[in-house]
Protein backbone atom coordinates (compact mmCIF):
# COMPACT_ATOMS: atom_id res chain seq x y z
CA UNK A 1 0.00 0.00 0.00
CA UNK A 2 1.30 3.46 -0.88
CA UNK A 3 2.28 5.73 2.00
CA UNK A 4 -0.24 8.33 0.90
CA UNK A 5 -3.07 5.83 0.81
CA UNK A 6 -2.09 4.61 4.28
CA UNK A 7 -2.30 8.11 5.67
CA UNK A 8 -5.69 8.64 4.07
CA UNK A 9 -6.89 5.50 5.80
CA UNK A 10 -5.54 6.72 9.16
CA UNK A 11 -7.35 10.04 8.69
CA UNK A 12 -10.54 8.20 7.79
CA UNK A 13 -10.42 6.12 10.99
CA UNK A 14 -9.72 9.20 13.09
CA UNK A 15 -12.65 10.93 11.39
CA UNK A 16 -14.94 7.99 12.23
CA UNK A 17 -13.87 8.05 15.88
CA UNK A 18 -14.40 11.81 16.09
CA UNK A 19 -17.81 11.51 14.44
CA UNK A 20 -18.82 8.92 17.00
CA UNK A 21 -17.47 10.54 20.14
CA UNK A 22 -17.36 14.27 19.44
CA UNK A 23 -20.13 16.13 21.28
CA UNK A 24 -20.42 18.55 18.34
CA UNK A 25 -21.34 16.01 15.67
CA UNK A 26 -22.70 13.09 17.72
CA UNK A 27 -26.47 13.43 18.17
CA UNK A 28 -26.28 12.17 21.75
CA UNK A 29 -29.75 13.00 22.94
CA UNK A 30 -32.05 12.54 19.97
CA UNK A 31 -34.71 9.86 20.30
CA UNK A 32 -36.54 11.25 17.23
CA UNK A 33 -36.86 10.36 14.44
CA UNK A 34 -37.20 6.67 15.19
CA UNK A 35 -35.69 4.64 12.35
CA UNK A 36 -36.43 0.88 12.12
CA UNK A 37 -37.46 1.11 15.77
CA UNK A 38 -34.10 2.57 16.79
CA UNK A 39 -33.89 5.97 18.46
CA UNK A 40 -31.99 8.37 16.23
CA UNK A 41 -28.86 8.33 18.42
CA UNK A 42 -28.67 4.54 18.41
CA UNK A 43 -29.37 4.37 14.69
CA UNK A 44 -26.58 6.88 14.04
CA UNK A 45 -24.16 4.81 16.12
CA UNK A 46 -25.19 1.60 14.37
CA UNK A 47 -24.51 3.17 10.96
CA UNK A 48 -21.11 4.43 12.10
CA UNK A 49 -20.27 1.05 13.62
CA UNK A 50 -21.10 -0.74 10.38
CA UNK A 51 -19.07 1.76 8.35
CA UNK A 52 -16.14 1.21 10.72
CA UNK A 53 -16.54 -2.56 10.47
CA UNK A 54 -16.42 -2.58 6.68
CA UNK A 55 -13.58 -0.02 6.65
CA UNK A 56 -11.42 -2.23 8.89
CA UNK A 57 -12.08 -5.25 6.66
CA UNK A 58 -11.22 -3.37 3.46
CA UNK A 59 -8.13 -1.82 5.08
CA UNK A 60 -6.96 -5.24 6.30
CA UNK A 61 -7.48 -6.75 2.86
CA UNK A 62 -5.21 -4.11 1.30
CA UNK A 63 -2.36 -3.53 3.74
CA UNK A 64 -0.17 -6.61 3.46
CA UNK A 65 0.54 -7.75 -0.04
CA UNK A 66 -0.04 -11.32 -1.13
CA UNK A 67 3.57 -11.77 -2.16
CA UNK A 68 4.68 -11.65 1.47
CA UNK A 69 2.06 -13.88 3.03
Amino acid at each position, binding site marked *: *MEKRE*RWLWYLW*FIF*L*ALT*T*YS*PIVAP*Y*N*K*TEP*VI*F*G*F*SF*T*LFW*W*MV*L*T*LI*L*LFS*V*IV*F*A*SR*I*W*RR*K*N*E
Partner: protein
Amino acid sequence: MNSVVLFLGAYLLVCLGFAYRGWKRRGEDLEDFFITKRTVGGFVAFMTFSATLFSSFTLVGMPGFFYTHGIGSWVFIAFADIFMALMIYFFGIRFWLLGKKFGYITPTEFLRDRYESDYVSVIAVLIGIVFLLPYISIQLIGAGIVLKGALGIPAFYGSFLLALILIIYSELGGMRTVAWTDALQGTILLIVGFLVAILFLREFGGISLMMSQAIEKYPELMTVPGPKGLFTYQILISFFIMIIFMPVTQPQLTVRYFIPESKKTLKLMMMATPIFAFLAMLPQLFIGIGAKIAFPELASGDQALTSVLTLIPPVVGAIAVTGVIAASMSTADSQFLVLSSLITKDFYVNILNPKSSNRKRLKIARISMFLLLLLAFIISLKPPKLIVTLSILSFAGTLQVLPTMLGGLFWKRATREGAISSMLVGVLTLSLFQWVLKPPFGIHQGIWGLIFGSLSFVLISLITKPPEKKAKKILGYLKEALGGLENGS
Protein backbone atom coordinates in the same frame (compact mmCIF):
# COMPACT_ATOMS: atom_id res chain seq x y z
CA MET B 1 -32.04 -28.47 35.50
CA ASN B 2 -31.52 -31.80 33.72
CA SER B 3 -30.90 -30.10 30.40
CA VAL B 4 -28.36 -27.76 32.03
CA VAL B 5 -26.48 -30.76 33.39
CA LEU B 6 -26.68 -32.43 29.98
CA PHE B 7 -25.37 -29.50 27.91
CA LEU B 8 -22.83 -28.38 30.46
CA GLY B 9 -21.62 -31.93 30.96
CA ALA B 10 -21.27 -32.46 27.20
CA TYR B 11 -19.37 -29.18 26.83
CA LEU B 12 -17.00 -29.94 29.69
CA LEU B 13 -16.35 -33.41 28.28
CA VAL B 14 -15.39 -31.89 24.93
CA CYS B 15 -12.97 -29.57 26.77
CA LEU B 16 -11.43 -32.56 28.48
CA GLY B 17 -11.23 -34.30 25.09
CA PHE B 18 -9.24 -31.31 23.78
CA ALA B 19 -7.05 -31.58 26.87
CA TYR B 20 -6.31 -35.24 26.08
CA ARG B 21 -5.51 -34.38 22.46
CA GLY B 22 -3.27 -31.50 23.57
CA TRP B 23 -1.48 -33.79 26.04
CA LYS B 24 -0.82 -36.37 23.31
CA ARG B 25 0.71 -33.69 21.06
CA ARG B 26 2.64 -31.90 23.79
CA GLY B 27 6.20 -30.73 23.22
CA GLU B 28 9.05 -30.62 25.65
CA ASP B 29 9.74 -26.91 26.04
CA LEU B 30 8.17 -23.59 27.04
CA GLU B 31 7.81 -22.39 23.45
CA ASP B 32 5.52 -25.31 22.74
CA PHE B 33 3.62 -25.08 26.03
CA PHE B 34 2.98 -21.32 25.97
CA ILE B 35 2.80 -20.44 22.26
CA THR B 36 2.53 -23.80 20.42
CA LYS B 37 5.80 -23.09 18.59
CA ARG B 38 3.97 -20.36 16.57
CA THR B 39 1.98 -22.81 14.49
CA VAL B 40 -1.64 -21.77 15.03
CA GLY B 41 -3.69 -21.49 11.84
CA GLY B 42 -6.25 -18.88 10.73
CA PHE B 43 -9.54 -19.92 12.29
CA VAL B 44 -8.16 -21.00 15.67
CA ALA B 45 -5.87 -17.94 15.91
CA PHE B 46 -8.73 -15.54 15.27
CA MET B 47 -11.13 -17.38 17.58
CA THR B 48 -8.68 -17.61 20.46
CA PHE B 49 -8.03 -13.86 20.16
CA SER B 50 -11.73 -13.01 20.04
CA ALA B 51 -12.85 -15.47 22.71
CA THR B 52 -10.11 -14.21 25.04
CA LEU B 53 -11.35 -10.68 24.49
CA PHE B 54 -15.00 -11.51 25.14
CA SER B 55 -15.52 -13.03 28.56
CA SER B 56 -18.59 -13.73 30.68
CA PHE B 57 -18.69 -9.93 30.92
CA THR B 58 -20.18 -10.01 27.40
CA LEU B 59 -23.08 -12.28 28.32
CA VAL B 60 -23.66 -11.20 31.93
CA GLY B 61 -22.15 -7.72 32.31
CA MET B 62 -23.15 -6.16 28.97
CA PRO B 63 -26.92 -6.81 29.19
CA GLY B 64 -26.56 -5.38 32.70
CA PHE B 65 -24.90 -2.26 31.30
CA PHE B 66 -27.64 -1.76 28.68
CA TYR B 67 -30.25 -2.40 31.38
CA THR B 68 -28.75 0.11 33.81
CA HIS B 69 -27.09 2.75 31.62
CA GLY B 70 -28.83 2.46 28.25
CA ILE B 71 -27.54 2.74 24.70
CA GLY B 72 -24.34 4.59 25.63
CA SER B 73 -23.07 1.09 26.36
CA TRP B 74 -22.94 0.52 22.60
CA VAL B 75 -20.22 3.06 21.90
CA PHE B 76 -18.70 2.35 25.30
CA ILE B 77 -17.81 -1.20 24.22
CA ALA B 78 -18.96 -2.27 20.73
CA PHE B 79 -17.58 0.60 18.66
CA ALA B 80 -14.33 0.60 20.66
CA ASP B 81 -13.90 -3.17 20.29
CA ILE B 82 -14.26 -2.97 16.52
CA PHE B 83 -11.84 -0.05 16.36
CA MET B 84 -9.43 -2.12 18.42
CA ALA B 85 -8.97 -4.57 15.54
CA LEU B 86 -6.93 -1.85 13.83
CA MET B 87 -4.30 -2.31 16.50
CA ILE B 88 -3.44 -5.68 14.98
CA TYR B 89 -2.00 -3.66 12.12
CA PHE B 90 0.02 -1.34 14.35
CA PHE B 91 1.17 -3.82 16.99
CA GLY B 92 0.27 -7.35 15.94
CA ILE B 93 2.57 -7.54 12.96
CA ARG B 94 5.44 -5.99 14.94
CA PHE B 95 5.14 -8.45 17.81
CA TRP B 96 4.77 -11.34 15.38
CA LEU B 97 7.93 -10.35 13.51
CA LEU B 98 9.90 -9.76 16.70
CA GLY B 99 8.72 -13.02 18.25
CA LYS B 100 9.87 -15.02 15.25
CA LYS B 101 13.19 -13.22 14.97
CA PHE B 102 14.23 -13.05 18.63
CA GLY B 103 12.27 -16.01 20.04
CA TYR B 104 10.08 -14.10 22.50
CA ILE B 105 7.46 -16.10 24.38
CA THR B 106 6.06 -13.25 26.47
CA PRO B 107 5.52 -9.55 25.60
CA THR B 108 7.53 -8.53 28.67
CA GLU B 109 10.57 -10.41 27.34
CA PHE B 110 10.54 -7.94 24.49
CA LEU B 111 10.61 -5.08 27.02
CA ARG B 112 13.55 -6.67 28.88
CA ASP B 113 15.48 -6.98 25.65
CA ARG B 114 14.56 -3.62 24.18
CA TYR B 115 15.35 -1.62 27.33
CA GLU B 116 18.20 -3.93 28.37
CA SER B 117 16.77 -4.07 31.88
CA ASP B 118 15.33 -6.77 34.13
CA TYR B 119 13.59 -4.09 36.19
CA VAL B 120 11.44 -2.97 33.25
CA SER B 121 10.13 -6.49 32.63
CA VAL B 122 9.70 -7.23 36.36
CA ILE B 123 7.56 -4.11 36.91
CA ALA B 124 5.48 -4.88 33.81
CA VAL B 125 4.97 -8.47 35.02
CA LEU B 126 3.92 -7.27 38.48
CA ILE B 127 1.40 -4.85 36.95
CA GLY B 128 0.03 -7.76 34.89
CA ILE B 129 -0.36 -9.99 37.93
CA VAL B 130 -1.86 -7.36 40.22
CA PHE B 131 -4.45 -6.19 37.69
CA LEU B 132 -5.28 -9.46 35.94
CA LEU B 133 -5.82 -11.72 38.94
CA PRO B 134 -9.02 -9.85 39.91
CA TYR B 135 -10.14 -10.23 36.28
CA ILE B 136 -9.71 -14.01 36.51
CA SER B 137 -11.72 -13.94 39.72
CA ILE B 138 -14.48 -12.11 37.85
CA GLN B 139 -14.80 -15.04 35.47
CA LEU B 140 -15.05 -17.46 38.39
CA ILE B 141 -17.64 -15.24 40.07
CA GLY B 142 -19.65 -15.02 36.82
CA ALA B 143 -19.75 -18.81 36.56
CA GLY B 144 -20.76 -19.15 40.20
CA ILE B 145 -23.64 -16.68 39.87
CA VAL B 146 -24.98 -18.32 36.71
CA LEU B 147 -24.78 -21.87 38.04
CA LYS B 148 -26.45 -20.75 41.24
CA GLY B 149 -29.38 -19.40 39.20
CA ALA B 150 -29.55 -22.43 36.91
CA LEU B 151 -28.92 -25.32 39.29
CA GLY B 152 -29.67 -23.78 42.66
CA ILE B 153 -26.23 -24.73 43.96
CA PRO B 154 -24.17 -22.27 46.05
CA ALA B 155 -22.01 -19.96 43.91
CA PHE B 156 -18.92 -21.43 45.60
CA TYR B 157 -19.45 -24.83 43.91
CA GLY B 158 -20.01 -23.26 40.49
CA SER B 159 -16.77 -21.30 40.75
CA PHE B 160 -14.96 -24.39 42.02
CA LEU B 161 -16.20 -26.56 39.12
CA LEU B 162 -15.04 -23.97 36.61
CA ALA B 163 -11.63 -23.66 38.26
CA LEU B 164 -11.20 -27.44 38.35
CA ILE B 165 -11.91 -28.01 34.65
CA LEU B 166 -9.77 -25.00 33.70
CA ILE B 167 -6.77 -26.24 35.59
CA ILE B 168 -7.08 -29.76 34.19
CA TYR B 169 -7.14 -28.81 30.52
CA SER B 170 -4.66 -25.95 30.77
CA GLU B 171 -2.14 -28.04 32.70
CA LEU B 172 -2.40 -30.89 30.24
CA GLY B 173 -2.28 -29.10 26.92
CA GLY B 174 -1.02 -25.54 27.56
CA MET B 175 -1.71 -22.98 24.81
CA ARG B 176 -2.59 -25.69 22.27
CA THR B 177 -5.58 -26.87 24.29
CA VAL B 178 -6.46 -23.35 25.39
CA ALA B 179 -6.61 -22.16 21.76
CA TRP B 180 -8.79 -25.11 20.69
CA THR B 181 -11.17 -24.68 23.61
CA ASP B 182 -11.26 -20.92 22.91
CA ALA B 183 -12.44 -21.65 19.37
CA LEU B 184 -15.23 -23.82 20.75
CA GLN B 185 -16.09 -21.34 23.51
CA GLY B 186 -16.19 -18.39 21.11
CA THR B 187 -18.57 -20.27 18.81
CA ILE B 188 -20.85 -21.12 21.72
CA LEU B 189 -20.81 -17.48 22.90
CA LEU B 190 -22.07 -16.26 19.50
CA ILE B 191 -24.73 -18.96 19.21
CA VAL B 192 -26.02 -18.32 22.72
CA GLY B 193 -26.21 -14.55 22.27
CA PHE B 194 -28.30 -14.86 19.12
CA LEU B 195 -30.50 -17.72 20.35
CA VAL B 196 -31.47 -15.90 23.55
CA ALA B 197 -31.98 -12.54 21.82
CA ILE B 198 -34.13 -13.97 18.99
CA LEU B 199 -36.37 -15.96 21.32
CA PHE B 200 -36.66 -13.05 23.75
CA LEU B 201 -37.50 -10.61 20.95
CA ARG B 202 -40.41 -12.85 19.93
CA GLU B 203 -42.03 -11.96 23.28
CA PHE B 204 -42.21 -8.36 22.08
CA GLY B 205 -43.13 -9.06 18.46
CA GLY B 206 -39.75 -8.00 17.04
CA ILE B 207 -36.96 -5.45 17.39
CA SER B 208 -39.00 -2.49 16.25
CA LEU B 209 -41.82 -3.02 18.72
CA MET B 210 -39.44 -3.67 21.60
CA MET B 211 -37.34 -0.59 20.96
CA SER B 212 -40.46 1.56 20.51
CA GLN B 213 -41.69 0.45 23.92
CA ALA B 214 -38.29 1.28 25.40
CA ILE B 215 -38.32 4.77 23.83
CA GLU B 216 -41.79 5.39 25.23
CA LYS B 217 -41.27 4.01 28.74
CA TYR B 218 -37.58 4.72 29.37
CA PRO B 219 -36.47 7.59 27.09
CA GLU B 220 -33.47 8.24 29.36
CA LEU B 221 -32.14 4.77 28.39
CA MET B 222 -32.09 5.90 24.77
CA THR B 223 -29.80 8.87 25.34
CA VAL B 224 -26.48 9.57 27.00
CA PRO B 225 -25.24 9.99 29.68
CA GLY B 226 -27.99 7.51 30.61
CA PRO B 227 -30.26 7.27 33.67
CA LYS B 228 -27.39 7.30 36.17
CA GLY B 229 -25.25 9.82 34.32
CA LEU B 230 -22.38 7.37 33.76
CA PHE B 231 -21.68 7.90 30.06
CA THR B 232 -20.42 11.45 29.93
CA TYR B 233 -18.26 12.45 26.93
CA GLN B 234 -15.18 12.21 29.12
CA ILE B 235 -15.97 8.70 30.29
CA LEU B 236 -16.85 7.42 26.82
CA ILE B 237 -13.59 8.77 25.40
CA SER B 238 -11.61 7.48 28.40
CA PHE B 239 -12.92 3.96 27.82
CA PHE B 240 -12.39 4.21 24.08
CA ILE B 241 -8.68 4.80 24.76
CA MET B 242 -8.48 2.04 27.37
CA ILE B 243 -10.21 -0.52 25.17
CA ILE B 244 -8.47 0.09 21.86
CA PHE B 245 -5.07 -0.37 23.47
CA MET B 246 -6.02 -3.56 25.31
CA PRO B 247 -4.27 -5.84 22.79
CA VAL B 248 -0.98 -4.23 23.72
CA THR B 249 -1.57 -3.61 27.42
CA GLN B 250 -3.22 -6.92 28.38
CA PRO B 251 -0.63 -9.68 27.99
CA GLN B 252 -3.18 -12.46 27.38
CA LEU B 253 -4.08 -10.66 24.14
CA THR B 254 -0.56 -9.51 23.20
CA VAL B 255 0.77 -13.06 23.47
CA ARG B 256 -1.72 -14.08 20.76
CA TYR B 257 0.36 -12.08 18.30
CA PHE B 258 3.13 -14.62 18.82
CA ILE B 259 1.13 -17.71 17.92
CA PRO B 260 -0.02 -17.28 14.25
CA GLU B 261 1.78 -19.42 11.73
CA SER B 262 1.89 -16.69 9.04
CA LYS B 263 1.12 -13.08 8.18
CA LYS B 264 -1.94 -14.32 6.38
CA THR B 265 -3.23 -15.59 9.72
CA LEU B 266 -2.72 -12.15 11.27
CA LYS B 267 -4.60 -10.60 8.39
CA LEU B 268 -7.50 -12.97 8.98
CA MET B 269 -7.45 -12.08 12.69
CA MET B 270 -7.72 -8.42 11.78
CA MET B 271 -10.60 -8.96 9.37
CA ALA B 272 -12.61 -11.41 11.46
CA THR B 273 -12.22 -9.90 14.96
CA PRO B 274 -14.43 -6.85 14.25
CA ILE B 275 -17.14 -9.10 12.80
CA PHE B 276 -17.00 -11.25 15.91
CA ALA B 277 -17.17 -8.14 18.12
CA PHE B 278 -20.24 -6.83 16.31
CA LEU B 279 -22.03 -10.18 16.41
CA ALA B 280 -21.16 -10.73 20.07
CA MET B 281 -22.42 -7.31 21.17
CA LEU B 282 -25.61 -6.89 19.12
CA PRO B 283 -27.71 -9.50 21.00
CA GLN B 284 -26.65 -8.02 24.35
CA LEU B 285 -28.23 -4.69 23.35
CA PHE B 286 -31.61 -6.34 22.78
CA ILE B 287 -31.37 -8.56 25.87
CA GLY B 288 -30.46 -5.63 28.14
CA ILE B 289 -33.02 -3.12 26.83
CA GLY B 290 -35.73 -5.82 26.61
CA ALA B 291 -35.02 -6.93 30.17
CA LYS B 292 -35.63 -3.36 31.37
CA ILE B 293 -39.12 -3.51 29.87
CA ALA B 294 -39.91 -7.03 31.07
CA PHE B 295 -38.21 -6.79 34.51
CA PRO B 296 -38.01 -3.09 35.44
CA GLU B 297 -37.25 -3.58 39.13
CA LEU B 298 -34.19 -5.83 39.20
CA ALA B 299 -31.82 -5.19 42.11
CA SER B 300 -28.81 -5.26 39.78
CA GLY B 301 -28.28 -5.10 36.03
CA ASP B 302 -26.23 -8.30 36.31
CA GLN B 303 -29.52 -10.18 36.82
CA ALA B 304 -30.84 -9.15 33.39
CA LEU B 305 -29.69 -12.28 31.57
CA THR B 306 -30.80 -14.76 34.24
CA SER B 307 -34.22 -13.04 34.37
CA VAL B 308 -34.59 -13.23 30.58
CA LEU B 309 -33.76 -16.95 30.68
CA THR B 310 -36.94 -17.54 32.69
CA LEU B 311 -38.98 -16.40 29.66
CA ILE B 312 -37.46 -18.65 27.02
CA PRO B 313 -37.62 -22.44 26.57
CA PRO B 314 -35.61 -24.27 29.25
CA VAL B 315 -33.48 -26.05 26.65
CA VAL B 316 -32.21 -22.73 25.29
CA GLY B 317 -31.73 -21.53 28.85
CA ALA B 318 -29.53 -24.58 29.42
CA ILE B 319 -27.47 -23.76 26.32
CA ALA B 320 -27.16 -20.17 27.55
CA VAL B 321 -25.85 -21.32 30.91
CA THR B 322 -23.26 -23.39 29.05
CA GLY B 323 -22.43 -20.29 26.99
CA VAL B 324 -21.76 -18.15 30.05
CA ILE B 325 -19.53 -20.83 31.54
CA ALA B 326 -17.71 -21.16 28.20
CA ALA B 327 -17.23 -17.38 27.97
CA SER B 328 -15.83 -17.27 31.49
CA MET B 329 -13.44 -20.10 30.75
CA SER B 330 -12.17 -18.69 27.46
CA THR B 331 -10.86 -15.55 29.14
CA ALA B 332 -9.74 -17.02 32.46
CA ASP B 333 -7.67 -19.82 30.88
CA SER B 334 -5.82 -17.35 28.64
CA GLN B 335 -5.16 -15.04 31.55
CA PHE B 336 -3.68 -17.49 33.96
CA LEU B 337 -1.75 -19.21 31.18
CA VAL B 338 -0.10 -15.91 30.25
CA LEU B 339 0.51 -14.96 33.88
CA SER B 340 2.17 -18.32 34.37
CA SER B 341 4.33 -17.67 31.29
CA LEU B 342 5.37 -14.29 32.74
CA ILE B 343 6.39 -15.87 36.03
CA THR B 344 8.15 -18.82 34.41
CA LYS B 345 9.95 -17.06 31.56
CA ASP B 346 10.48 -13.55 32.89
CA PHE B 347 11.20 -14.37 36.52
CA TYR B 348 12.43 -17.94 36.65
CA VAL B 349 14.23 -18.50 33.35
CA ASN B 350 15.48 -15.00 32.54
CA ILE B 351 16.46 -13.92 36.05
CA LEU B 352 16.57 -16.70 38.63
CA ASN B 353 17.75 -19.80 36.78
CA PRO B 354 18.78 -19.25 33.15
CA LYS B 355 20.51 -22.63 32.97
CA SER B 356 17.50 -24.69 34.10
CA SER B 357 16.41 -27.69 32.07
CA ASN B 358 13.28 -27.72 29.92
CA ARG B 359 11.77 -30.30 32.25
CA LYS B 360 12.28 -28.06 35.28
CA ARG B 361 10.88 -25.03 33.42
CA LEU B 362 7.70 -26.87 32.47
CA LYS B 363 7.32 -27.99 36.07
CA ILE B 364 7.58 -24.37 37.25
CA ALA B 365 5.05 -23.35 34.57
CA ARG B 366 2.51 -25.91 35.77
CA ILE B 367 3.00 -25.17 39.46
CA SER B 368 2.69 -21.41 38.96
CA MET B 369 -0.47 -21.92 36.89
CA PHE B 370 -2.03 -23.94 39.69
CA LEU B 371 -1.09 -21.39 42.36
CA LEU B 372 -2.39 -18.47 40.31
CA LEU B 373 -5.74 -20.11 39.79
CA LEU B 374 -5.94 -21.03 43.46
CA LEU B 375 -5.29 -17.40 44.39
CA ALA B 376 -7.93 -16.17 41.92
CA PHE B 377 -10.40 -18.65 43.38
CA ILE B 378 -9.73 -17.40 46.92
CA ILE B 379 -10.29 -13.79 45.75
CA SER B 380 -13.57 -14.85 44.10
CA LEU B 381 -15.00 -16.04 47.42
CA LYS B 382 -15.84 -12.45 48.38
CA PRO B 383 -17.58 -11.22 45.22
CA PRO B 384 -18.16 -7.49 44.61
CA LYS B 385 -21.68 -6.18 43.97
CA LEU B 386 -21.20 -5.36 40.32
CA ILE B 387 -18.70 -7.73 38.74
CA VAL B 388 -17.80 -5.20 36.07
CA THR B 389 -16.11 -2.86 38.56
CA LEU B 390 -13.07 -5.11 38.98
CA SER B 391 -12.84 -5.72 35.28
CA ILE B 392 -12.77 -1.98 34.61
CA LEU B 393 -9.95 -1.46 37.10
CA SER B 394 -8.03 -4.17 35.27
CA PHE B 395 -8.17 -2.24 31.97
CA ALA B 396 -7.02 0.94 33.70
CA GLY B 397 -4.20 -0.78 35.55
CA THR B 398 -2.64 -2.58 32.61
CA LEU B 399 -3.02 0.61 30.54
CA GLN B 400 -0.08 2.04 32.49
CA VAL B 401 2.29 -0.19 30.51
CA LEU B 402 1.27 1.53 27.27
CA PRO B 403 3.98 4.27 27.08
CA THR B 404 6.65 1.63 27.73
CA MET B 405 5.28 -0.60 24.97
CA LEU B 406 4.81 2.21 22.46
CA GLY B 407 8.21 3.71 23.23
CA GLY B 408 9.81 0.30 22.87
CA LEU B 409 8.30 -0.24 19.44
CA PHE B 410 8.41 3.24 17.93
CA TRP B 411 10.87 5.58 19.71
CA LYS B 412 14.60 5.01 19.66
CA ARG B 413 15.19 7.63 22.38
CA ALA B 414 13.10 5.65 24.88
CA THR B 415 15.18 4.63 27.89
CA ARG B 416 14.86 2.12 30.71
CA GLU B 417 14.67 4.96 33.28
CA GLY B 418 11.84 6.52 31.28
CA ALA B 419 10.03 3.19 31.09
CA ILE B 420 10.35 2.43 34.80
CA SER B 421 9.26 5.93 35.80
CA SER B 422 6.27 5.88 33.45
CA MET B 423 4.91 2.62 34.86
CA LEU B 424 5.43 3.69 38.48
CA VAL B 425 4.03 7.20 37.96
CA GLY B 426 1.08 5.77 35.99
CA VAL B 427 0.10 3.24 38.65
CA LEU B 428 0.60 5.74 41.48
CA THR B 429 -1.55 8.35 39.71
CA LEU B 430 -4.24 5.75 39.03
CA SER B 431 -4.20 4.69 42.69
CA LEU B 432 -4.33 8.30 43.88
CA PHE B 433 -7.44 9.07 41.82
CA GLN B 434 -9.01 5.70 42.53
CA TRP B 435 -8.73 5.71 46.29
CA VAL B 436 -7.78 9.18 47.56
CA LEU B 437 -8.88 12.02 45.28
CA LYS B 438 -11.71 12.47 42.80
CA PRO B 439 -10.41 12.44 39.20
CA PRO B 440 -10.52 16.02 37.81
CA PHE B 441 -12.79 17.05 34.90
CA GLY B 442 -14.68 13.73 34.97
CA ILE B 443 -11.84 11.97 33.13
CA HIS B 444 -11.24 8.37 34.19
CA GLN B 445 -8.40 7.78 36.66
CA GLY B 446 -6.76 5.33 34.24
CA ILE B 447 -6.38 8.10 31.68
CA TRP B 448 -4.85 10.43 34.27
CA GLY B 449 -2.37 7.66 35.03
CA LEU B 450 -1.61 7.38 31.32
CA ILE B 451 -1.16 11.15 30.92
CA PHE B 452 1.26 11.54 33.84
CA GLY B 453 3.00 8.26 32.99
CA SER B 454 3.55 9.40 29.39
CA LEU B 455 4.88 12.79 30.48
CA SER B 456 7.29 11.13 32.84
CA PHE B 457 8.32 8.64 30.13
CA VAL B 458 9.19 11.38 27.62
CA LEU B 459 10.90 13.73 30.07
CA ILE B 460 13.04 11.08 31.78
CA SER B 461 13.91 9.45 28.45
CA LEU B 462 15.13 12.77 27.06
CA ILE B 463 17.51 13.36 29.96
CA THR B 464 18.89 9.81 30.20
CA LYS B 465 21.05 7.76 27.87
CA PRO B 466 19.15 5.39 25.56
CA PRO B 467 20.23 1.74 25.30
CA GLU B 468 22.38 1.47 22.19
CA LYS B 469 22.86 -2.11 21.10
CA LYS B 470 19.62 -4.04 21.32
CA ALA B 471 17.33 -1.08 20.70
CA LYS B 472 19.10 -0.33 17.43
CA LYS B 473 18.98 -3.97 16.43
CA ILE B 474 15.28 -4.38 17.24
CA LEU B 475 14.08 -1.12 15.69
CA GLY B 476 16.36 -1.57 12.69
CA TYR B 477 15.01 -5.05 12.08
CA LEU B 478 11.41 -3.83 12.36
CA LYS B 479 12.02 -1.00 9.91
CA GLU B 480 13.56 -3.35 7.39
CA ALA B 481 10.97 -6.11 7.76
CA LEU B 482 7.99 -3.76 7.69
CA GLY B 483 9.40 -1.79 4.75
CA GLY B 484 9.62 -4.99 2.74
CA LEU B 485 6.13 -5.95 3.80
CA GLU B 486 4.50 -2.68 2.82
CA ASN B 487 6.31 -2.48 -0.51
CA GLY B 488 5.72 -6.09 -1.47
CA SER B 489 9.42 -6.82 -1.82
